[in-house]
């Protein structure tokens, strides 16, 4: 049976991360998921959307080994994760979860010390750990913060330090819970740019968010959750479907509405993509008027 499931999971390009038949519930409440199947393709950005209490965080925690499903299996790179401590630790190393609140993950006095926490636990030699830390800080563009005490950092900086800490584990998948929450729009842009750099370097990103507009312009595929999987597919298809969004208790994105209005006004060629940002919509409008 294991072989068959493995065979399925590895058919075609193996999924970076997959869950099959995941069932999970918190004590004394109705199960959040029953027999959930999800598949995260290699190398993309996967948006996870849904209402509060819809199971976004639960799914992220199940996929990253921070919760154990009541039933069902997790696959990393096509391999089934076995029961037991060793396999769980291997899953956690390969799939790093970053929480919404950076303060939950910063528990050391200085930035470099905090980022080194994971590499030290991997049993790396001091030199190798130091190298990892430097590399992770570089990737998050916060090398200059290395010797700062963590409690003096801004919220956005703390978010980056936590990301560096996860990246220092060299995971194949980074799972981010609401990475843009609490950031101002400029902070969101700059973080998305940095994360794009990680994606370009081959890391698969799984990102939960409330921001339909962000998911619409950034994610390749999305998972729409509301205590079960409502839809999985191309972001621009799923998030343009008002019925699906209503079922997930989300608002529609602005971009498709603006795109349609611009096409109706003849300011955007039929078939061309929707404007990603209000700036872009304004530019299209301004170009026509100016």
């Amino acid at each position: 049976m294991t072989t068959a499931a493995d065979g399925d999971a590895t058919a075609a390009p193996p999924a970076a991360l997959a869950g099959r038949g995941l069932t999970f519930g918190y004590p004394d409440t109705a199960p959040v998921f029953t027999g959930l199947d999800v598949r995260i393709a290699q190398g993309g950005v996967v948006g996870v959307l849904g209402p509060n209490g819809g199971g976004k965080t639960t799914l992220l925690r199940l996929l990253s080994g921070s919760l154990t499903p009541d039933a069902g299996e997790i696959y990393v790179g096509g391999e089934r994760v076995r029961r037991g401590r060793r396999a769980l630790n291997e899953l956690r190393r390969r799939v790093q979860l970053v929480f919404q609140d950076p303060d939950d993950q910063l528990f050391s006095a200085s930035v470099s010390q905090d980022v080194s926490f994971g590499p030290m636990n991997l049993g790396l030699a001091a030199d190798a750990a130091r190298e990892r830390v430097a590399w992770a800080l570089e990737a998050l563009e916060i090398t200059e913060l290395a010797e700062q005490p963590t409690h003096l950092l801004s919220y956005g900086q703390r978010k980056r330090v936590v990301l560096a800490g996860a990246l220092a584990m060299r995971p194949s998948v980074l799972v981010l819970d609401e990475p843009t929450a609490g950031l101002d729009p400029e902070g969101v842009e700059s973080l998305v740019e940095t994360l794009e750099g990680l994606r370009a370097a081959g890391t698969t990103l799984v990102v939960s968010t409330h921001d339909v507009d962000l998911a619409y312009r950034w994610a390749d595929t999305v998972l729409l959750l509301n205590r079960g999987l409502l839809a999985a597919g191309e972001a621009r298809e799923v998030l343009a479907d008002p019925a699906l969004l209503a079922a997930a208790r989300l608002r529609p994105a602005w971009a498709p509405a603006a795109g349609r209005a611009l096409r109706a006004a003849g300011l955007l060629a039929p078939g061309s993509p929707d404007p990603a940002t209000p700036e872009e919509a304004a530019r299209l409008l301004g170009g026509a008027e100016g």
Partner: protein
Amino acid sequence: MLAIDAAAYASPWRRVHPAVKGVFFGGLLVCALALPTWPAAPLVAAVALTAALGPARVSPRAFARAAWGPLLFILTGSLTLLVTVGGPQGAIAFDPDGPARAAEIIGRAAAAVCCQLLFALTTPLADLLPRLTRIGLPAALVETVALIYRMLFVTLDSAHRIQTAQAGRLGYSHRRAWVRSVGALGAALFVRSYDRAQRMQRGLECRGYTGELTVLVDELSLRPAAVSAAALPSVLVAAATVSYMFLGAGL
């Protein structure tokens, strides 16, 4: 977050005055401790469990989970009573009176643990603590205890989340990492507790805080009849035990 606490808020006996539950379970507890273990302990356990699993609808699973820890202590501790050391039979020898003695202590303690747990499983601390001033405890102390009760959930929540994050970075994968992780967690929690106190200070000042945490405690009617009724089971257990002893002596 804490199973016993959550069960207490969901209990159908929640609206019963804490003093009534205190008399009921406290009276039984006194019976278990003060009366001869046989037959008082089984009687106490039977009455307490019947009330709890019946009208108070305590979940047997929640009860079993909570009882596991103290029972383990009681059983391990009682193992020592089975043997005697340094006696004429040698350094360590089986004590023929041991099993009876151990059984007596296990019986008494198990009955007492039932009373304690069932009180805890039906009485939320948010209802109990503000009323402690009525029994003469200083208000400043009661306010502080109530504040600790509220803040421990906030701190516990931080602890859980930090621990999950540490586990994700393999902080509990081997013993050395574990020690390092718990140490880092303890330090982070201390700093955070201090910070939380300062932020709460600011937050409460906006609502007129000047040093007193005075709140309005809802009146729960405490009817003397209810208190008497709550005392009745203990009286009956005591009467049954005493008459059993007399009967035993008479035979």
